């Protein structure tokens, strides 16, 4: 009997340990996780942690020092660039290892490997887009250049040095929760991360939706509802700027019937993630109180934790730069050095086109081109899926690019016609070289030469220097297109539709020291119609109008004024559209109307009128455009809100049939507006019963951990604003970094981002900057001189790296 118990108990003990040592469904291995020595509690960082330490390394070329200041911003001082980027890699890994691992997995379509088949569709899409192909192409260019090769090798070695010293106990918490381990870092991962950003910023497309709209709308409707340039656009390059004579002539537009296929059925666009945008502006010294130019930038990205940015200062001989780095890549992306400053917004010129491919019926390995048969290049994509067999997908490449959609991979609504994607991101570009040279540039000319390497994602790069210059460039690599080339899906059957010459990058739209004394970009149209090259793109105007309106009235701008502008929640959309909506109400006399009439059109965090307006506008907007055959296109391929507003002002909005009355168009519009008003008030009343009628409650801005786990995320942040205000804080994206730099004799710089320098949810530095960001406050950035010793009072810890 005792033997029986002994065996039974042994089995039970072994079983209990076995279960606790293995993941159970979605649950991680609990024994490993809860073990207070090596498990999750090992990631509970003491709040008074002392980061002072000395690290001896055989691979360093000299001594390197890192000073950490009060916001945990590292100031790295190295004697060579190799050491600088090695230590930058080391620090990125120390504070953000899991994040950069996941982001590069997300880029490459390798998420299922660690999550399971939930993310299989996502991974497959990444493979279909040719993300790894894109990264491999750029990697070749980056490794062929000795400068970027050195940067990447040193940076990768720094990350790998950190990884090599890790035991289970030291792994970031998320590895323990998800049950996997970091793999060695590679230069390819740097390229993947840059392509991830390129895809995020230039990957959205409305080509399919536009092709369909072209079929279902009359040419007049198309022109009125979807203008190439919105009337009154306050373009990035101010109207009236004289452009250089183009070196290339615009190619002739082939007959539409020859180049655009006809799509008659249903929706087949990949829904575009709406609302990514950014602001930057520069004010010349003639318009500032100090007499020195001021540069401001707030790039809007997904609001995630760990934060997308990591602030740092880099110092080496001939290099002293401060700003935000993108963990996973060396260098500083947005910032300033001892001579000049720069900030980026997305340019939105279309650099991604689709071609319909005609496969040879008898031979699936070939497609028709210029009357002959051409071989597809096949790329076999093996997607490893956690807990399931591998999934293999063969992606066919044409001379345009990968077949994104075909009979094996339908677009959302079942479109089966094979479409190849042609994307600037697939080209062998070397943005890292641009980043490296921007960091080192000492004057305008050097800076301009630096950004000639910034090809994709195209950015509006604002510039201000201590010599008093301000400038802006609509920078990126663009194609000399014929009118409407790539606006719609094109037939890819012959060379007529191919991308041909590249526009020399010096001919990109730019302006230096304009008479108006300021420059701004907020994803609006890049130029007026005098720019000699044709382009289209996903431009939005409302924020740009507001920024220009504010800057135009400023003569003695101060840094504080800039803070106020970045946090401005005034909605021009509401200011212009609301009075018209109100004046078109049929016999409505309630308290809400009175409140709306007295509202100042600011989307402050606690406004209730703002909530009502936003709901009303949204319902009204959808009611106008979700009509007839347009129901089939994605939400974000609808006409722009600013265009809708203009059509409303011009009394030129198409009112859907259901609102039409014998009394005529004006009465129809009143009907539409009134009915949606009542619906909006009902919605507001519902929100009131849940006590969530205040704007911040209604919109629920959330800073989400990349796993989406609420435990590591922060919701209902008390911030105002929306996509139609300068402070474009929406539900899940918004200002990912706010920076204001005054380029005087002394550089005075301020910055803040939502989150914290540490990616560890068990650290107090995980979200210690968040409240300041929410409140619209800034931290003064301690720009240290390029010296070996520092006595700045804000330095808290020193890490000494020594050559062994």
């Amino acid at each position, binding site marked *: 009997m*005792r033997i029986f118990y002994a065996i039974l108990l042994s089995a039970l*003990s072994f079983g209990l340990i076995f279960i606790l040592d293995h993941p159970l469904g979605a649950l991680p291995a609990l024994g490993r996780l*809860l*073990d207070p020595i090596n498990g*999750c509690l*090992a990631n509970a960082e003491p709040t*008074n942690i002392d980061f002072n330490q000395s690290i001896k390394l055989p691979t360093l070329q000299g001594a390197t020092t890192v000073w950490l200041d009060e916001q945990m911003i590292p100031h790295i001082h190295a004697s060579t660039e190799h050491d600088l980027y090695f230590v930058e890699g080391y620090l990125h890994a120390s504070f953000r290892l899991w994040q950069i691992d996941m982001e590069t997995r997300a880029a490459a379509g390798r998420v299922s490997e660690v999550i399971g088949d939930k993310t299989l569709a996502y991974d497959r899409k990444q493979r279909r887009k040719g993300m790894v192909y894109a990264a491999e192409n750029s990697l070749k260019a980056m490794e062929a250049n000795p400068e970027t090769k050195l940067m990447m090798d040193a940076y990768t070695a720094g990350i790998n040095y950190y990884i090599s010293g890790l035991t289970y106990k030291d792994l970031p918490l998320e590895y323990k929760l998800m049950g996997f381990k970091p793999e060695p870092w590679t230069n390819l991962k740097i390229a993947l991360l840059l392509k991830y950003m390129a895809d995020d910023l230039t990957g959205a497309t409305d080509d399919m939706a536009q092709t369909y709209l072209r079929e279902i709308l009359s040419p007049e409707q198309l022109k009125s509802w979807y203008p190439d340039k919105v009337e009154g656009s306050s373009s990035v390059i101010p109207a009236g700027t004289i452009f250089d004579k183009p070196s290339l002539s615009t190619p002739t537009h082939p007959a539409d019937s020859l180049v655009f296929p006809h799509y008659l059925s249903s929706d087949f666009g990949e829904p575009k993630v709406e609302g990514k945008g950014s602001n930057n502006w520069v004010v010349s010294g003639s318009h500032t109180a100090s007499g020195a130019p001021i540069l401001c930038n707030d790039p809007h990205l997904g609001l995630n934790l760990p934060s997308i940015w990591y602030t740092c200062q880099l110092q080496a001989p001939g290099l002293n730069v401060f700003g935000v780095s993108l963990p996973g890549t060396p260098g500083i992306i947005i910032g300033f050095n001892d001579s000049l400053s720069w900030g980026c917004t997305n340019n939105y010129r279309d650099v991604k086109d689709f071609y319909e491919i005609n496969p040879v019926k008898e031979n699936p390995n070939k497609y028709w081109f210029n009357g002959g048969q051409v071989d597809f290049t096949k790329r076999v994509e093996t997607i490893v899926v956690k807990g399931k067999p591998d999934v293999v997908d063969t992606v066919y490449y044409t001379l345009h690019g990968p077949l994104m959609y075909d009979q094996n991979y339908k677009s959302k609504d079942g479109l089966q016609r094979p479409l190849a994607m042609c994307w600037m991101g697939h080209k062998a570009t070397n943005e890292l070289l641009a980043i490296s040279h921007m960091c080192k540039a000492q004057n305008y000319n050097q800076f301009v030469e630096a950004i000639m390497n910034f090809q994709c994602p195209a950015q509006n790069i604002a510039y201000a220097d201590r010599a008093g210059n301000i400038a802006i460039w609509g920078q990126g690599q663009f194609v000399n297109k014929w009118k409407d080339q790539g606006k719609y899906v094109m037939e890819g059957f012959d060379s007529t539709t191919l991308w041909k010459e590249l526009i020399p990058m010096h001919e990109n739209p730019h302006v230096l020291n304009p008479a108006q004394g300021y420059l701004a970009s907020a994803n609006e149209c890049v130029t007026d119609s005098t720019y000699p090259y044709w382009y289209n793109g996903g431009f939005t105007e409302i924020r740009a109008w507001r920024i220009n309106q504010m800057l135009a009235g400023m003569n003695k701008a101060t840094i504080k004024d800039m803070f106020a502008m970045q946090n401005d929640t005034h909605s021009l959309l509401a200011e212009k559209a609301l009075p018209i909506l109100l004046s078109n109400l049929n016999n409505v006399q309630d308290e809400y109307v009175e409140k709306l009439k007295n509202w100042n059109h600011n989307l402050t965090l606690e406004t209730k009128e703002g909530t009502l307006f936003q709901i009303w506008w949204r319902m009204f907007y959808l009611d106008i455009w979700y009509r007839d055959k347009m129901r089939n296109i994605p939400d974000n391929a609808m006409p722009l809100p600013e265009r809708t507003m203009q059509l409303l002002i011009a009394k030129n909005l198409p009112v859907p049939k259901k609102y039409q009355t014998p009394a005529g168009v004006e009465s129809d519009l009143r009907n539409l507006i009134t009915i949606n008003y009542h619906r909006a008030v009902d919605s507001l009343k519902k929100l009131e019963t849940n006590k969530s009628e205040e704007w911040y409650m209604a919109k629920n801005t959330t800073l989400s951990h990349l796993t989406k786990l609420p435990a*590591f995320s922060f919701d209902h942040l008390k911030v105002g604003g929306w996509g139609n205000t300068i402070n474009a804080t929406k539900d899940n994206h918004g200002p990912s970094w706010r920076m204001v730099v005054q380029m005087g004799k002394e550089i005075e710089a301020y910055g803040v981002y939502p989150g914290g320098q540490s990616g560890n949810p068990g*650290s*107090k530095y995980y979200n210690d900057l968040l409240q300041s960001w929410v409140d619209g406050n800034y931290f003064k950035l301690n720009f240290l001189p390029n010296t070996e010793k520092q006595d700045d009072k804000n330095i808290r810890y020193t890490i000494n790296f020594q050559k062994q």
Partner: protein
Amino acid sequence: MRFFLTILIIALVSAIGEMIFPWWIIGIVSLLAGMLAGLKPGKSFLAGFLAIGIFWLVAALCHDLPNDHILSQRMAILLFKKPTYPLFLLVIAIIGGLVGGLCSLTGAYIRGISK
């Protein structure tokens, strides 16, 4: 006396063991201690339970207190949807205790076979 000594030895040896081995070393230590201690089954279970339970609780507090409960609150939200970190710490102690107790009890029964 032997009971308390067993608790002390299991806790100490496990603590040293966890510096080198993964968490399941606590099971092996408890099992061996259960075999060697010669306690009655009930007491053997209790000794293992208390030894590992206390060891894990103390170890957890050593991380949690200097951390101002930042991590334990987030883990509590993750597991129980509420930031009740004491519950999280208690669960750690109980799970560790169960492993220790069960293994120590097994050890006592294995010792019994040879008698």
